Each structure stands twice: as C-alpha cells, then as structure tokens.
C-alpha cells in the first residue's frame, strides 16, 4: 500500500550517500501520496509538502543524525506542528456542546465523554437535544443508564432550546453537562440556525466538533461552517478503529484553530482516548 511506498522511499534515503534534489523530490512525492491517501485536504498536502521539501534541501542533518533520520524528523515536525498539541481538558465544572455532521458519532461520544469525566471522579450528566432523529432520546438514555450518570431529555418535544434550558436547570447538581445535538451540514440553513440558538441558550464552555475519521475533502468546508456558526473549541475524531486515517482532522484543526481533544476507537462507551499527536501522525503516514 501507500505505507510501503513511503517506507521504500525512506529506505532509499538510508542507503544514499547524500541527499540531493532528486531524492528529496522522491520523498516529497511519496509523502504527498501518503497524505492524500489519508484524506488530508489537497491544498494542505501541497502546502505541507512544499514546506518539507524546502527544509529537507536547506537544513543540514544535525551532528550524529543520518540523512534519513533527518528527513523523517522534518516530516514529523511539520505534521505534528500542524496538528498541534492534544487539547488541555479542565477537570472542573463546565458545559460542553457536541456538534457535527450526520452520523459522525456525536451521541456515542457524548456518552463516552461523560464516562471520561466520571472516571476522573467528576459527576457528569447529558442532555438529549436531538429532536429529529427517531430513537435519539432512547439511544442516549440507554447509554447513560448503562454507565450510571444523569440524563435529561423530553421524548416528544420539538423545541431543542426549551429542552436544554429545562435540562440545565434540572441537572444543576452535576459538574459536567454535555449536550448532544442533531447531525447537520452546512447547507441545512434551518439546522445551522437551530445550532446557534442552542449555543446561545447553553453558553457552553466548550463546543466540540465531532468528525468521522473517514471524512473526505468535505472536512475543510464543513469545519469552516461549524466554526463560523458557533466557534469550535475542540475536535473529536471518531471511528479510528476502522481503516480510515483521519486526515480530515488536519483541516478541522486548520479551520477552527482548535486542538483535537479525543479520539473514538470503538463502539463501546469505554473506547475513548485522549488525542496523542505522534501516534496519530505515524498512523496517518501508514
């Protein structure tokens, strides 16, 4: 696969006596392919790979480091520098709003995030504010019952803002309140407006964008739309237990200027880890 091609190219550098323009071009080309295959935004791939090419040609390997290690180091530095540090999660009272595209993993992540705070000794609660999807109320209610944290929802209500206002009052005794919302995309103007209304009613400390690891070139535009609407403060990447590499997350970071906080790695409420830049990048490059 693409991973092999990147490894082969790196092996070539290992055996090269010196790094010349042709070899660097070959490395950059295989890095571009790895990134494109990982769903990184096309324009972003070109920008990042140009930066890598520039540095690989200009910078001398430090004392004692092989040319190959030097180039690999540049690649990792550029990519981890781009994706930034893992988000700094405060373990205190807060309200968190969960938003994202249809089917991206918001409802399960709402429960997983609550479980995360529960494991840290805090008292979490969740609000089911998705009034459209049939069974959304039951889905979140069942998850909260299994893990034993408070749940608020109004099964037949058609007013998400009312639900969150009532929920916030009802769940006052809890440390962390996490609000699940309906899936929506940038062209569903009514739903974007609803999201803004919910955001205003909750005035949350955090607004997390939940993204499917498999999202393609749409990531950039959708992240931009969510950020323009409610100002995203963190990104969650779900379904990294599949084969998708999550390159769309780089666009999400670029468009929202916010860090990746957590990753979803399975279908149970425990499959939730804090984001680790190095592991993510090495998996992305295959």
């Amino acid at each position, binding site marked *: 696969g693409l991973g092999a091609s990147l490894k082969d190219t790196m092996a070539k550098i290992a055996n090269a006596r010196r790094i010349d323009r042709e070899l660097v071009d070959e490395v950059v080309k295989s890095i571009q392919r790895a990134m494109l295959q990982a769903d990184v935004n*096309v324009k972003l791939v070109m920008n990042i790979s140009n930066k890598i090419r520039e540095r690989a040609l200009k910078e001398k390997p430090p004392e004692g480091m092989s040319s190959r290690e030097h180039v690999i180091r540049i690649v990792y530095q550029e990519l981890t520098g781009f994706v930034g540090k893992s988000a700094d999660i405060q373990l205190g009272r807060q309200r968190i709003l969960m938003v994202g595209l249809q089917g991206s993993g918001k409802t399960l992540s709402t429960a997983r995030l609550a479980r995360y705070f529960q494991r840290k000794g805090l008292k979490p609660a969740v609000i089911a504010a998705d009034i459209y999807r049939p069974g959304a109320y039951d889905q979140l209610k069942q998850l909260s019952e299994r893990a034993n944290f408070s749940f608020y929802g109004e099964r037949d209500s058609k007013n998400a803002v009312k639900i969150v206002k009532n929920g916030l009052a009802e769940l006052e005794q809890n440390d962390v309140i996490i609000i699940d919302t309906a899936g929506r995309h940038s*062209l569903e103007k009514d739903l974007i407006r609803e999201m803004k209304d919910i955001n205003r009613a909750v005035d949350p400390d955090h607004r997390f964008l939940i993204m*499917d690891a498999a999202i393609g070139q749409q990531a950039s535009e959708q992240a931009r739309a969510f950020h323009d609407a409610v100002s995203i403060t963190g990104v969650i990447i779900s379904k990294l*237990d599949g084969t998708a590499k999550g390159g769309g997350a780089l666009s999400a970071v670029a468009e929202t200027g916010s860090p990746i906080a957590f990753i979803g790695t399975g279908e149970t409420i425990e499959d939730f880890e804090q984001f680790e830049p190095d592991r993510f990048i090495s998996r992305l490059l295959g």
Partner: protein
Amino acid sequence: LVIDEGSLEKPLWDLEIALLESDVAMPAAEEILKSLKEELIGERRKFTAKTHKIAEEALRNALLKVVSSGQFDFDTFIRDAAKPVKILFVGVNGTGKTTCIAKVAYRLRERGHSVVLASGDTFRAGAEEQIDAHAERLGVKLIKHQQGADPAAVIYDAVQHANARKLDVVLADTAGRFHTSVNLMEQLKKICRVNKPDLIIFVDEAIAGNDAVERAKQFNEAIGIGGSILTKIDADAKGGAAISIAHVTGKPILFVGTGQEYGDLEPFKPEWLVEKLIG
C-alpha cells in the same frame, strides 16, 4: 500529431487532483488514469485539438463506464423477483442504513408493494426504537426480538412472516460494523448463510474519502455486494465515492440519498455524477 507521454503528464496530473478533490479514492483515481494514459499514448490528434481537452473527454468516458457497470433497474428487479424478495442492508457505522431502509420501504409502498422490516441491529443503543419509529410512521410491520438477540434469527423470522402473509419484500437492517472486526464480519457472513438474501445493498456516504474503496472492497470480498446506495450527497459532496465503490465492486450505485426525509432517495444517474465530478 501523435499524443506522447510528456504532453499527457500535466493534463493527467490536473485531472487526478480534480478527482481527488472530489473524493475519488486515490487507488481508484490512479488506476483509471493509468489505463487512460495507456489508451491515449500513440493516439493521433488534430493539430488544433488540445491534449488536455482530449484527456478530459477520455476521462469522462472512462468514468461513465466505471459508474455504469452492472446497472440494473431496481423497480424492475423487485417486480420480476420471486416473492418475498429479501434485501439486506450492510455497511460501516453511521452511513445511513436504517434511514435508507425507511426510504426504500416508502418507495416500495408508493409503488404498491407490501413490505416487512427486520430489526437486524440487535446491538446498538436505541437501534430498535429508531427502526420501530420508522415502521410506525410508514405503517409497515416490523419484526424484532430483544436486544442482544441473534440478528440472523430476527431476519429469518421476518422472512417467515413474509412467507406466511404473502408479502412482497423483506428489508433487513444490520448493525454498522467495521471490516476490521473479524467477529462482526463473521456474524454478517452467518446472517447471509442463514437467510440467503436476494440482494445485498452496501450503504455508504458520499462524504467518505479514501476509506470508501477499502470498506466496499472488504464487504464485497466477505459477502458479495449486489448494489450500493450512496447517502448524504446533499451535504454538497461531489460524490467521488461513487466512482471508488463502483470501481472496486463492479456493482452499480442504485440510489443516492439526498436528505433525511423519506422522499429523499433518487435513482442514481451516471451522467449526472460524472458531470458533477469534472463538469
């Protein structure tokens, strides 16, 4: 003038970027462009004809060919098949399988067919309530067991019900699963062994990128796909995943999902998609 490799390099690279930006998976884009290159090299062209226009036209035809492979009319298939027709919906998590079942049930009912649904997702929280709500709204019977039940048994039950009541179509839902889970893929194989579906529909989303190839390939190798439905194309997705899926399975895209309502299911039109991709 004869088209040579050199003059093709930039046009093909530009076309590859256009395909990648439209979510055609890299392996699919590369293979299509590779055979295009072989086809074009050595071809003659008029002095006035631009190489990139020739390449673009050739690509348009190649894409049309890929995405039209195996096309059949779903309504005709239903009409002519022995009853009850057993249709299984499969795919990875969150792609829109359950919603597709509701949309297909709606479409079948509009055309005068009798339908029964099978609640084959016996695992996920709220899965049964979700399909139950759809069944109720559509006025369609739903066969369900308790949570944790064997999905093969639920679907089997639904088929028995259809036989007993002389119903036309059984639409069977399954839990989302990743091809990387050996257990869940084995469970899916068992569902197919026990129930022998007449049509297996792979449901994937237009917003998926490169993974569309991998998952279509793995599902196809595991249980054989009869056709696909591409959902969420209304999220301004270019729909390149259609090329990826058709390319790797050789099976047709039957419908596209254009929204969250029951009516948001349209028959797939190859020309419309290719126009979106490189129009």
